């Protein structure tokens, strides 16, 4: 993408909205009706699976096996959530996911922005070669098993470090932050110099506060990525139950139901009941409840995300 291609629209929209007049013609009315109908159907298709899962998770487990639950629970019950919350593994996985996400966001933002500051300084002599080395990593990956062997040889298997150390810096976010820092007027940084601030202090006290909006966007994306990841748990930390994450627990449930499905000829969840701590539920209900628990934090930050992600995407495209 060229920078002109994306940079332009930001300046233009008001001009265009004014120039278009609204005219009602037969063609226009028919088109608008069809278009609105289509978009509403599309939105329904996007939301239905989520509402269906929510309804199933709030429905009685034995009743859900009969099928036919729409977007409203048929026999309302909170039992599935009681079961999920009484499962020690899920509990622990939830807190591990939260802890991991927080640590990844903090370390990633800290180190990526520190490096971005150094690379945004025009006078920095090794700016170009260092940037190139980082950018190339967006396109080069040694592969799954070599990466696994490195973590193993560093002695980080089955440790919390395996979650945050390998993802301390993201080349893509580095470019976004560097671009934003470059747009900060040189005078601000020079005045900090005159007041006696060194590079480190300039970065922490002057540049970082100015980058808050971009840091927020980048941080949210990092958080979503970390919350959603499961492969790191599978590869590096599946040997220790206390390091398990919510996505990985959900993946294990999904895998067992897929295997059961393959064996019973396509029925993705067998009707067998699951007894857990004196409660009775069914795999399908249990899976729905865990899916909701895993999705809710994302849906919770979504309003904040959607306010910012377009601008974040634009910054990414308009780098220079």
């Amino acid at each position, binding site marked *: 993408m060229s920078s002109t291609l994306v940079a332009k629209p930001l300046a233009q929209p008001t001009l265009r909205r004014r120039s278009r007049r609204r005219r009602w013609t037969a063609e226009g009315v028919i088109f608008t009706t069809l278009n*609105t109908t289509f978009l509403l159907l599309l939105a329904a298709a996007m939301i239905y*699976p989520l509402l269906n899962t929510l309804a199933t998770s709030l429905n009685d487990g034995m009743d859900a096996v009969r099928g036919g639950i729409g977007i409203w629970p048929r026999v309302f019950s909170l039992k599935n959530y009681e079961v999920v919350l009484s499962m020690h593994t899920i509990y622990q996985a939830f807190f591990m996911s939260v802890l991991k996400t927080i640590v990844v966001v903090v370390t990633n933002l800290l180190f990526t922005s520190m490096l971005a500051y150094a690379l945004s300084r025009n006078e920095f002599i090794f700016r170009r070669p260092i940037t190139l080395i980082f*950018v190339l990593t967006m396109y080069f990956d040694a592969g799954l*098993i*070599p990466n696994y062997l490195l973590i193993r040889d560093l002695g980080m298997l089955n440790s919390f470090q395996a979650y945050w150390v390998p993802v*301390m810096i993201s080349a893509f976010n580095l470019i976004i932050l560097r671009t934003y820092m470059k747009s900060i007027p040189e005078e601000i940084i020079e005045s900090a110099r005159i007041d006696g601030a060194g590079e480190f202090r300039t970065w922490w006290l002057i540049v970082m506060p100015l980058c808050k909006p971009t840091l927020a966007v980048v941080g949210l994306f990092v958080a979503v990525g970390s919350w959603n990841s499961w492969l790191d748990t599978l590869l590096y930390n599946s040997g220790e139950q206390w390091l398990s994450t919510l*996505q990985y627990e959900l993946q294990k449930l999904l895998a067992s139901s897929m295997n059961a499905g393959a064996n019973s000829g396509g029925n993705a969840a067998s009707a067998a009941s699951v007894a857990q701590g004196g409660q009775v539920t069914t795999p399908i209900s249990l899976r729905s409840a865990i899916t909701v628990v895993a999705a809710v934090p994302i849906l919770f930050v979504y309003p904040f995300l959607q306010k910012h992600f377009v601008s974040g995407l634009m910054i990414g495209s308009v780098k220079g």
Partner: protein
Amino acid sequence: MTDATVSTLVAGSGPEPDPEPANGSRSGKRKARTNAAKDPRREITWDRIWAQRVLLAMAVPLLLYQILFKYVPVYGWAIGFQDYKPGRGGIWEQEWVGLENFVDLFTGVNGERFARVVANTLGQSTLTLIVGTFGAIVLALLLNEVKNQPFKRVMQNITYMPHFLSWVIVASLASVALSLPSSGGFINQALMSLNLVDEPILFLTEPNYFWGIVAGTNLWKELGWNTILYLAAITAIDPTLYEAAEVDGAGRYRKMFSITLPGIMPTIVVLLIINSGWILSTNFELPYFLGNGLVSETAETIDVFVLRYGYELGNYSLAVVAGIFKTVVAIILVGSANLAAKRLNQETLV
């Protein structure tokens, strides 16, 4: 692989791969080069290095970190040339076998399986790319025709949302949606109540459906998200073109097909080219989660092969060879795709 979102974002938003932007980069580079020759400020001397010691202290440890975690793992490629047995100890105590693993992977029984794996990777990615691009263009055009701004915003926010759900959740939703009605399979239920089928279709056990399921699920997840760049390109179209067309009596459809669509054509082409560079790297989670034994002939992709056959069964050598193959081909593809996009960019946009 852990930040797949970022890599799709890179692929989707398609920023320039190198630190130089496509436009004006030439003059920028030239200036920098002449500066480096003339300007004493850019010369590398011990004095300058000492003066910039704080910047160096901020950058160099992280540079070493990045080299350790992204470039050093290449030593693992040695396993591709060994008969790797974990019991023998470390990587340097293994038996070297030259290119034997490469011959093994590309010929004979394994060769047939690997050819199928490559075909599945290409097939699933291509279908996903075509369906996804087409869908996103259509949706962008339709959203652009919505004049009611709040309605448009609500529609955008709803269609963007699935992008942020994890692949585990999306695969879980898909497996429920496609299952039998008794397991909550509402797609079968809808088909049956509309009398389109008499018996529920066993979507996830029928190999012929698998590529379509991958493409369809990808469409559901990324459709709205993929419209963002097209919508941005649409707002960049010169509004006087629409006015001129209106004066000439062009209706809504005429404007859509003769102004909007040609207006975003360069974006479409550039994004298609850049995304096709990622064709070996894109689909991993869905075939891994949804592919069971019954559909593995169409489900297994290169990454799934590496994870299942290599990591889970401990056949490191063959899996590493498959990984080397993927990385090398992917670099060639991504490199040429970016080159092509850049060249095209300069011809059509500048």
